[in-house]
């Protein structure tokens, strides 16, 4: 594909102090990166690496976000002035993909830059090809694996034809296969096109072969800069101490197990598992976990590791077979309090399991006494953060805290899902030490993991799950867990109805703006009427016409259920309290059931149905991308706001998975026995925090992809307004007219006005 010439990056006496901070994050920085140079940027967490990448990408924000001094340049211009010259790839795939279909998402950046439609359409397949995703152009971005999602995000960056690639820990959240995929894709691109590359990562071994220069940042200053071998030789020890994985200076491993496994703590027999909302996986697993041992569940993605772990932890019921733990029967049958007492569970994302306002309260949950909380705070170096919110901690601190909370109640069995995912070498070593200590104190550890080093360090007994779901126990480490190709075949989104005119039902072909207008016009009229006739006529006409939309009856019933339930309940209230007239049938305090109130109630019932049903019928399959395209093109609403809304709607689909995870985590933490309202409120708060965090990361990703760039935006997918759209809107108006005319002619017309 055609690429732009490589970009030069520079910093001259540059400092940045974010709003609300006393000290600058980056201090008087001088750095020059030549076009085509490949640089690995190292440094401990908090050294300013990510900030520097964001600054070059021009997404640090304006004067209300902080103060800057000196100059930061891309080529010879101020960073941020040259949108699209540098491409930024972030850590979290969820924070970068905006649209539902892969190729739509790739087009997103160039669209924001206002490039011509033809060029964008030609560039998208080339960008997908370049990252090896040509076959998945129509895939649903949510259903791709982590490695595929990151490669797709890379394609989105490439489509903007940048001169430099800035990668911010692009593989931190990926399993080993995903790390390999992404690193290989980047290497191919950079080598072929001679792009400038700056990558922030703590896994040196992955990137060292590709780069020709290493820059080390410490507390916002450059402390080392030079060829890879020289810098690693000079700074290796210091870097390793700061958490960087320097080859030959691996993290410290805990001592080997001191005792042979003892009493049986957990036994699974003939186990099959079922992921929430998925198909059962028949593992046929027989497993015994004993005191003083570590069991590692390994295998490729989709083999059922995490599902098995959650099932053993009593958070999912077994699909078949049985589990007996601690002589107390099936863990899935225990109360939440019992579960929290007996098992300590650590989730992949620590933020899913935090429930308290402060670190101290988090540890004290379930009545852990103060002295033990203090001891844990000291042991995990969290004492100075005792009163901070768990959500405000850094990644490594959050991981330590999540393990500490699981250990707080001194459970017999510790169950962990990918505990070492995304951790730097320092946190990794601390984690390994904690788990080894638990093992040697006579506890058992069961963990689902991809991390071979952790399996070896803990002397874990490995249970390898094959992708086909059959389990075989492999004794000790070095078992034959060869990486298996990803079994998941991501689902595709059917080609947009726009492009298959004539074959999709009218209901899915309609322009979303037409759908809104057609249901809104009669609805606005109906809310101003009080009589039975106008509502009845409108409803009857609508029910006659809805079948023409071609929506399956099942879908229609399911989606209109809220209205069908709410309408009679609302009508019942009017029966009791509506304005009385005519014969009064019953009277009690303020309740007066009369001819008048009965008639009003009937009108209310019909009105709600006539307003609610068509609104849903015309939107049987809401599609955020199409809605956004229509709002931006047909209604010409401001693009930035439309895209913000579309992105937020996409996050809505993630919320359901989050809610499930949070429910489970709360059961594991002993809060599952609480009342519904309290649980719901806690859940909503945690969901809000997660959503805002995702939204904030997404905003950086979107800005890096040109949202908010000056100049008009290109909309690459047309949102045509067809004759059928005009007809549907006209029918909506006609229904309103006929309904009112019928009411007037029968002399029944009553309006709220007058």
């Amino acid at each position, binding site marked *: 594909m055609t690429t732009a010439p490589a970009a030069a990056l520079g910093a001259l006496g540059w400092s940045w102090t974010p709003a609300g901070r006393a000290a600058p994050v980056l*201090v008087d920085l001088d750095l020059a990166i030549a076009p085509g140079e490949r640089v690995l940027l190292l440094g401990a967490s908090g050294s300013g690496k990510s900030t520097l990448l964001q600054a070059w990408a021009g997404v640090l924000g304006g004067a209300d976000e902080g103060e800057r001094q000196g100059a930061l340049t891309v080529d010879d211009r101020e960073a941020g002035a040259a949108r699209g010259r540098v491409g930024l790839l972030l850590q979290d795939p969820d924070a970068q993909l905006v649209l539902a279909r892969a190729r739509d998402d790739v087009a997103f950046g160039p669209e924001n830059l206002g490039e011509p439609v033809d060029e964008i359409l030609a560039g998208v397949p080339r960008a997908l090809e370049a990252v090896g995703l040509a076959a998945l152009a129509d895939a649903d971005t949510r259903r791709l694996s982590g490695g595929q999602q990151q490669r797709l995000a890379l394609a989105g960056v490439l489509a903007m034809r940048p001169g430099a690639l800035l990668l911010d820990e692009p593989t931190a959240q990926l399993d080993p296969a995903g790390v390999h995929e992404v690193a290989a894709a980047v290497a191919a691109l950079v080598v072929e096109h001679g792009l400038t590359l700056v990558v922030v990562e703590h896994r040196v071994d992955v990137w060292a072969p590709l780069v020709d220069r290493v820059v080390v940042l410490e507390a916002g200053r450059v402390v080392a800069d030079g060829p890879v071998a020289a810098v690693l030789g000079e700074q290796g020890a210091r870097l390793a101490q700061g958490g960087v994985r320097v080859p030959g200076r691996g993290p410290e491993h805990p001592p080997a197990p001191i005792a042979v496994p003892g009493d049986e703590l957990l036994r699974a027999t003939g186990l099959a598992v079922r992921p929430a909302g998925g198909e059962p996986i028949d593992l046929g697993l027989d497993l015994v976990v004993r005191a003083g041992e570590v069991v590692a569940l390994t295998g490729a993605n989709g083999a059922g590791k995490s599902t098995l772990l959650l099932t053993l932890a009593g958070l999912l019921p077994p699909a078949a077979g049985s589990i007996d733990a601690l002589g107390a029967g099936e863990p899935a049958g225990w109360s939440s309090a019992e579960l929290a007492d007996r098992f300590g569970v650590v989730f992949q994302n620590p933020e899913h399991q935090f429930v308290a306002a402060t670190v101290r309260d988090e540890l004290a949950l379930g009545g852990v006494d103060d002295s033990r909380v203090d001891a844990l705070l000291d042991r995990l170096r969290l004492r100075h953060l005792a009163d901070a919110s768990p959500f405000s901690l850094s990644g490594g601190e959050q991981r330590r805290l999540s393990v500490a909370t699981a250990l707080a109640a001194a459970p017999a069995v510790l169950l962990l899902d990918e505990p070492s995912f995304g951790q730097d070498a320092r946190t990794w070593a601390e984690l390994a030490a904690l788990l080894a200590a638990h093992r040697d104190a006579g506890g058992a550890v069961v963990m689902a993991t991809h991390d071979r080093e952790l399996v070896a360090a803990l002397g874990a007994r490995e249970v390898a799950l094959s992708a086909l779901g059959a389990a075989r126990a492999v004794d000790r480490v070095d078992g034959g867990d060869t990486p298996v190709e990803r079994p998941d075949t991501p689902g595709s989104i059917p080609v947009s109805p726009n492009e298959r005119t004539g074959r999709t039902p009218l209901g899915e072909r309609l322009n979303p703006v037409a759908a809104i207008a057609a*249901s809104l016009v009669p609805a606005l009229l109906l809310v101003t009427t009080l009589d039975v006739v106008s509502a009845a006529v409108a409803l009857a006409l609508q029910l006659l016409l809805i079948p023409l939309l071609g929506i399956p009856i099942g879908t229609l019933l399911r989606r209109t259920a809220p209205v069908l339930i709410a309408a009679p309940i609302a009508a019942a209230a009017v029966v009791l309290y509506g304005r009385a007239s005519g014969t009064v049938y019953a009277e009690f305090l303020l309740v007066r059931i009369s001819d008048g109130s009965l008639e009003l109630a009937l009108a209310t019932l019909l009105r709600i149905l006539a307003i609610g049903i068509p609104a849903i019928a015309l939107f049987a399959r809401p599609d955020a991308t199409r809605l956004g395209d229509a709002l931006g093109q047909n209604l010409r609403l401001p693009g930035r706001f439309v895209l913000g809304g579309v992105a937020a709607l996409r996050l809505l689909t993630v919320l359901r998975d989050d809610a499930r995870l949070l429910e489970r985590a709360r059961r594991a933490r002993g809060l599952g026995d609480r009342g519904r309202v309290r649980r719901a409120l806690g859940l909503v708060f945690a969901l809000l925090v997660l959503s805002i965090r995702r939204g904030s990361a997404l905003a950086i990703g979107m800005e890096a992809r040109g949202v908010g760039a000056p100049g008009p935006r290109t909309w690459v997918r047309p949102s045509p307004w067809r004759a059928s759209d005009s007809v549907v809107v006209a029918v909506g108006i006609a229904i309103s007219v006929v309904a009112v005319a019928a009411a007037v002619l029968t002399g029944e017309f009553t309006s709220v006005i007058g």
Partner: protein
Amino acid sequence: MVTTAASPTRPRFSPQWRVIDIVVASVLGVAGGLVMTLWNLVYSPVTAPLEVALPGLQALMYAIWLFPAVLVGLVVRKPGAALYGELVAAAVSALLGGMWGWTALAWGLVQGLGAEIVFAILLYRAWGLLPAILAGMGAGVGLVIMDLTFYYAGTRPEFMVVYAASAIVSGALIAGLGSWLLVRGLARTGALSRFAAGREGATPIPAAPAATEDARSEA
């Protein structure tokens, strides 16, 4: 150090929306729409006892439909934020299948304006508890105007008075006080660190005691 700022930098107020303002406002609006959708399903049975006690009193809980306006206004602090938040929430509730269809947009518009006008009168400078309560009441006035005009036009005057008073009190408590508490809680988690609302409400996090400690996570 070469440059040392003596105090935290004071951000300037800018009426311009940043991309993060738009995205987070949208996310909160969508979340609000989800809450509205769930509330649509249960509000009737939940408020029925109030209604039986005194018709019109059911509106004491109706501000659950209003909180996105105040919440988004308080977090984003930009002109139009309260209106945008309420409109997004209303649109999402219509999209997910609400009993009021797309007419929810009209309610969202008027309710959002109710809160927006209060923030505007305060020149987008005051974001404390009292402004939050007033904005909640403003949204409540919007709800009263819409409901009494379109849904309860035929009801008795005493019902209208009780209904209006209940809705406005509800706006003050649930939408106003509730949103203010929620923003304070969110600020404590550090999730709002890129917003002035998050920087004011958050307790400063102490630095690690020794040089070997983890540095703070990067922005």
